């Protein structure tokens, strides 16, 4: 296990270091590897897994990887991870929860395979102890007709840090919805690459985060449309108080032959302090004709008209403000429930 001062020395990406953006983490990965050399693997614990579900050790070489994930994996020489496999056609009514506690500096890798026509609601939860840090690689593979509803909860505590790289590949008619939340982490970076590889694939990427004090959340997302006739949506919302910082990089890339793409990304921030900072970089790369793609980004304080509307119904100012702040993020949860 690592000592506290070691995790603090890990060279993590920052907003001004472009090497980290979209696929060049290997520049620093070797340094990271040296520091995390003795880090223990954080093991996920699944509780009462139902039939049709297996959580097994998984050799590193068996984990296919793309882009920055591959480079990071190679640099870190991460050992065996775990694989959660859902049998074809399994219709799981109850959500499966995978929980892990993070102490010191730890690494974790998880591969999730949802079989053809199977349906899964997966909850991944990391609970961080004080001064801990996690480097996490996750890969989700959805076979034709599969559905995965995924909740990723990072539950920090004081000076805790997370660096999570996720990738998701959706086959024909697969449906993927993720909701990531980061709570009380001093620093977190979340890179997510979504690839829709066959017609009918659909994805909804959601994130809702309450940032305070000096916390910094750095979200990097890519929606890669490799096939015609796919749909993706991304909604990332943050509320910021004190001196918190939110960084968002979002990219929709439509490959040359991926006609009839329907894609949208949105980054919305509720700025509740004049000292909070937001950097938002939504982008489109459209290489095909006949597509519907757009993006949006907005950072603003609580909407004055909404505030007045609540007050006009007798709700006191402080409560109205609190209600709207909570509603801003609750709205994201609603999208997840409706998927």
């Amino acid at each position, binding site marked *: 296990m690592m000592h506290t001062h070691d995790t603090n020395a890990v060279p993590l990406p920052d907003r001004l270091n472009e090497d980290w953006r979209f696929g060049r983490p290997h520049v620093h990965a070797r340094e990271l590897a040296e520091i995390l050399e003795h880090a223990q693997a954080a093991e996920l614990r699944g509780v009462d897994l139902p039939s049709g579900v297996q959580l097994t050790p998984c050799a590193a070489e068996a984990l296919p990887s793309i882009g920055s994930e591959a480079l990071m994996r190679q640099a870190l020489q991460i050992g065996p991870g775990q694989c959660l496999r859902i049998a074809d056609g399994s219709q799981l009514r109850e959500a499966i929860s995978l929980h892990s506690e993070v102490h010191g500096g730890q690494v974790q890798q998880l591969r999730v395979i949802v079989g053809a026509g199977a349906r899964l609601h997966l909850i991944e939860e990391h609970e961080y102890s004080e001064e801990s840090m996690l480097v996490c690689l996750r890969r989700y593979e959805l076979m034709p007709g599969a559905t995965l509803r995924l909740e990723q909860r990072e539950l920090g505590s004081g000076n805790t840090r997370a660096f999570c790289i996720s990738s998701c590949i959706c086959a024909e008619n697969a449906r993927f919805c993720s909701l990531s939340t980061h709570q009380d982490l001093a620093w977190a970076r979340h890179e997510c690459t979504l690839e829709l590889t066959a017609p009918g694939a659909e994805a909804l990427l959601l994130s809702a985060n309450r940032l305070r004090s000096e916390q910094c959340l750095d979200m990097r997302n890519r929606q890669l449309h490799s096939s015609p006739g796919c749909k993706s949506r991304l909604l990332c919302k943050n509320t910021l108080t004190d001196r918190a910082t939110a960084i968002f990089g979002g990219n929709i890339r439509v490959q040359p032959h991926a006609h009839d793409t329907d894609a949208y990304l949105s980054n919305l921030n509720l700025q509740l302090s004049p000292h909070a900072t937001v950097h938002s970089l939504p982008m489109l790369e459209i290489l095909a004709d006949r597509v519907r793609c757009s993006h949006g980004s907005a950072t603003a304080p609580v909407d004055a008209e909404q505030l007045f*509307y*609540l007050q006009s119904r*007798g709700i006191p*100012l402080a409560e109205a403000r609190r209600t709207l702040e909570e509603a801003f993020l609750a709205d994201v949860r609603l999208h997840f429930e409706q998927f």
Partner: protein
Amino acid sequence: MSLVIKNLHACVRGGQEILCGVDLDVPTGEVHAIMGPNGSGKSTLSKVLCGHPDYEVTAGSVELNGQDLLAMPPDARSRAGLFLAFQYPVEVPGVSNANFLRAALKARLPEGEELDAVAYYKRLRKVMNELGMDPKFSSRAVNEGFSGGEKKRNEVLQMLMLEPLCAILDETDSGLDVDALRIVSQGVNAMRSSFRSFLVITHYKRLLDYIVPDVVHVFHQGRIERTGGRDLVDYIEEHGFDFLKKEDA
């Protein structure tokens, strides 16, 4: 006891004066209609009465049942019994209709007192049914994705649930089809009583065919230009507001 407005002047904060000396007395038990051309200041009057922060009152007074409304913040005005059915109700994503109304009703209770949840939901369902609203609307976010007519109906739902002493309806008829207009009007008429007053702002006679006013005012250039009875509505319907221009000349 009534809504009493005396010599009310108001401007857009730091800008142009829009209300230029409004005098109006709406006694309890009465329905007053305000008609007037576009841009005459009708909607501004409704917002100023409710304390919208975009406007600044520069002179005059407003009392509701003897209480100085202008001295109160918007939420206190509501709890004092004032209600505005907005012309353009805002959407509030993430707050369900049911929770919104519950919070509004709870704000009216003495501190520490809780709302009877069972009785509340029972009453909410009943009122929604009377207004012909799908019960699913109670769990939907306030006005989010609602059609124009659904938003207006939702405003009337809030009014019926909050039971104000004085209700201002700002162009509630716009966006409503004939059937919805009839249902909404029935809801308003059911609330008419000797201890409640209404100020109905509209461009059209058709709403006033359903909600028959006791007094009709014509608003022009930020003040009440003419006051009359039901026949004034018929006159405006036939001749428009041209007579105001002639009077100006």
